[in-house]
């Protein structure tokens, strides 16, 4: 039986007139069985880009990776394979099969592998069609609520306008989770990030096609270890209070603020998807009307709800004090993650400026990123930054743009920008 725990880290003391309360809430799940132990069944769909650009070793690697994935989907798991170009096609179960999705068993596995082997590459790329087809396939088994998809592409979503992709993402949000992978350097990080963010998944660059198989294996292993299919973060704020933002800050930065659904006038729910034994950190910021010195109140109740039932809760407090030694402190956890969030946006803004030709802004932003990465011990970000900028002074963020930085290096930095380092406690 999964146990959730919520711990709150904050400085609850506000100065006279202070209104903003920040807290880091660490939510930990333990005792979560593997996927399917909650009883309702698990479904996996692998979506492979078969647009013309994939022709050659890229497609071969993708097909191999799909077959590896099939080996790692255990018997009993519902699954399907989709090939996507400017249209989406169900590869297995076969297009003329009466069912859209089947449970894994040895014969199905063998047939699916044969179907994958016959894939060929042609056409453009319109990922909205892939997402909608996956959604339709999942929907044929409404009882199976833990739904996960892997999307692999090598190029831009060139066959449709961006808002068509956005509309599809919006339509399928909340219906399944999706991890997005881009192989090579011709795909757009922001397109896949849009998909992964909305569908509660991760986005990664795979530089070498030979690595796709291993990536799929670990994605499936992670997905299948999630025994809690859906948990919600619920935030209660008092009457007169206002949620400034709710962000996941570890393991990756994701702004959840806009994904709030209303439970009651004072309680909002934010989706967090499926959980394995893991812990995630959230940064919650609330604005309250200021109270007189000496007053104390609750700024927020942060709860975890599984299946509609609250299973863990933490209290975020506010206390007004005239003691400067209390109010001036910043909770180390809040400071760390505020820095991490700033790091993510500094990297993304710096790369965007560089792409737009604004080298001055790019230098400043990426310099700030270097500084933050060093301060917060985010070594992965530092190493990826090094491939894009020459670091003259880490402490002061003095950098120079590297002339020969490859597109792949920039994309690697971009996709890694949302990965945070945990606060050291």
């Amino acid at each position, binding site marked *: 039986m999964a146990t959730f725990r919520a711990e709150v880290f904050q400085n609850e003391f506000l100065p006279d007139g202070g209104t903003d309360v920040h807290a880091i809430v660490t939510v930990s799940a333990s005792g979560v069985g593997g996927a399917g132990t909650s009883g309702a069944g698990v479904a996996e769909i692998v979506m492979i880009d078969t647009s013309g650009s994939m022709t050659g070793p890229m497609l071969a690697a993708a097909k191999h990776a799909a077959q590896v994935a099939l080996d790692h989907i255990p018997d009993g798991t519902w699954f399907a394979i989709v090939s996507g170009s400017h249209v989406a096609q169900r590869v297995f179960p076969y297009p003329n099969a009466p069912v859209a999705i089947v449970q894994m068993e040895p014969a199905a596995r063998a047939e699916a592998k044969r179907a994958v082997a016959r894939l060929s590459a042609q056409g453009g790329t319109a990922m909205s069609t892939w997402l909608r087809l996956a959604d339709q396939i999942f929907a044929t088994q409404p009882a199976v609520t833990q739904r996960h998809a892997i999307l692999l592409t090598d190029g831009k979503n060139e066959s449709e306008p961006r808002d068509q992709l956005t509309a599809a993402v919006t339509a399928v949000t909340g219906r399944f989770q999706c991890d997005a992978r881009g192989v090579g350097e011709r795909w757009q990080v922001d397109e896949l990030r849009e998909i992964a963010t909305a569908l509660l998944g991760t986005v990664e660059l795979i530089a070498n096609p030979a690595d796709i198989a291993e990536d799929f294996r670990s994605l499936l292993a992670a997905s299948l270890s999630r025994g809690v299919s859906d948990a919600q973060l619920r935030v209660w704020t008092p009457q007169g209070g206002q949620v400034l933002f709710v962000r996941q800050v570890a393991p990756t930065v994701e702004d959840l603020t806009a994904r709030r659904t209303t439970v009651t006038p*004072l309680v909002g729910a934010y989706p967090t998807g499926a959980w394995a034994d893991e812990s995630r950190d959230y940064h919650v910021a609330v604005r309250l009307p200021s109270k007189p010195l000496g007053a104390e109140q609750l700024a927020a109740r942060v709860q975890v709800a599984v299946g509609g*039932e609250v299973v863990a809760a933490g209290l975020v407090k506010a206390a007004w004090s005239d003691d400067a030694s209390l109010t001036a402190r910043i909770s180390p956890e809040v400071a760390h993650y505020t820095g991490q969030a700033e790091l993510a946006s500094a990297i993304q803004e710096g790369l965007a400026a560089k792409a737009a030709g604004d080298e001055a802004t790019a230098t400043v932003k990426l310099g700030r990123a270097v500084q933050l990465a060093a301060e917060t011990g985010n070594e992965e970000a530092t190493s990826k930054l090094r491939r894009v900028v020459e670091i003259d002074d880490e402490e002061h963020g003095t950098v120079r743009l590297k002339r020969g930085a490859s597109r792949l290096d920039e994309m690697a930095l971009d996709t890694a920008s949302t990965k945070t380092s945990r606060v050291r406690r």
Partner: protein
Amino acid sequence: MSGTGTAVVCPACGEAAGDGARFCEACGAPLAAAHGTGPDGADSADPSSAVPGSTDPGPAPGDPASSGAASPDPAQSGAASPGGSPEGTPPAGTAVDGASPCPACGGDVADDGYCAQCGARAPVERDHREERAAPHVAGVSDVGVRRRRNEDALALGAVPGPDPGATGGQAAGSSPGEDVSVLVVCDGVSSAPDSDVASQAAATAARDTLVAGAAHVPADDAAAWSRLLVAAGHAADDAARAAVDDATARQDPPSCTFAAAVAGPGLLVAGWLGDSRVYWLPDAGTPEQLTEDDSVAAELMADGMSRAAAERSPQAHAITRWLGADAEDTTARTVATRPGGPGWVLACSDGLWNYASAPEAVADLLRDAVARVGDDPLALSRDLVAWANASGGHDNVTVALARVPGTAAAGGGPADPQDDPHDDAGTAPTVRRRPPGSLPGEPPTDTGPSAP
């Protein structure tokens, strides 16, 4: 509470909740504790639960359990609820419907101790406690304005004194002439966590010791009373150390001051460690501060600094003696005096004397309060606490008052303290005689306290 065990209603928002659900689906408030399906109001172990009537200003109904010894008047003893503990945790099963609404907005208070609507912290009983041990013995302890937790503690008692002149049939009424009044005030050291737990345990233990011993000590034996006060101090110290399990292991174990006064027929004895005080405020005559603070400010005054300057100095409130696991010497100093006439014994924490320190100031304060609210000690205590809060309320404030009638006890006792053959500074440990009429506010020039 459990009722039929089927329909369960959320105490915070009123939504029906599923059987066995631990949290309300609509608002997230916790429902029942681990046992039972009914939404119990307060878990009896939860100290932050709101208690009905905890801020009720009415004299009798709001009082928690008062003193141990019999308060013979049934009207008063009716107020002592046997199930309530001094900590104010309500008996299990205080129904949800009875939970008092949030004082800030009228909403329901969730089990986590905060309002489900506006988030205000629900007042805990300790935030404002009133106690009455007898018609003439009462006190109030309040969290103050600026502090979030009340670390002051109060414990009162009234014992019908042994009447040497009476025959077997003793009058049942608690006539003030025979009663022994017991006042105990303990102020937790706020820098040490859990000092509030220690202070309450200490005050209760000291009061119980005094009340139990009162029956056996001759009414006018100052030395014996002093020894009883010292014993009460030790009992309080033991209780303070035992109040938390790991007290000795902590770097900053819970600690508190101790100030106790026993007012018997014709004799008033006070014992103390720290800077909580006992004042003697006669109706006619010179008011006195009976205790002498164990504090840096008092040492400065002993060296000749004026009271005003000493109490303003930076370390003024640093106390030099206290109760707790890290206290070296917990033998209370004591002082005995014979009231020359009627008056008030006032025991208080520094939350009051921070705003009125010199005995004359306290006497004036009390006189004004009597003019405002009459001579009921509970009303007076409330008034003084309100005055301290109005003056700033920077600290927890506790005031306890006992009315001393000042008439000669039946059977006689010398009105003139100088003639009392029992007063013998040489045989009594740590007794210091201070005849009434000595200049108030001056450090004692006669015999200082004997070595403990």
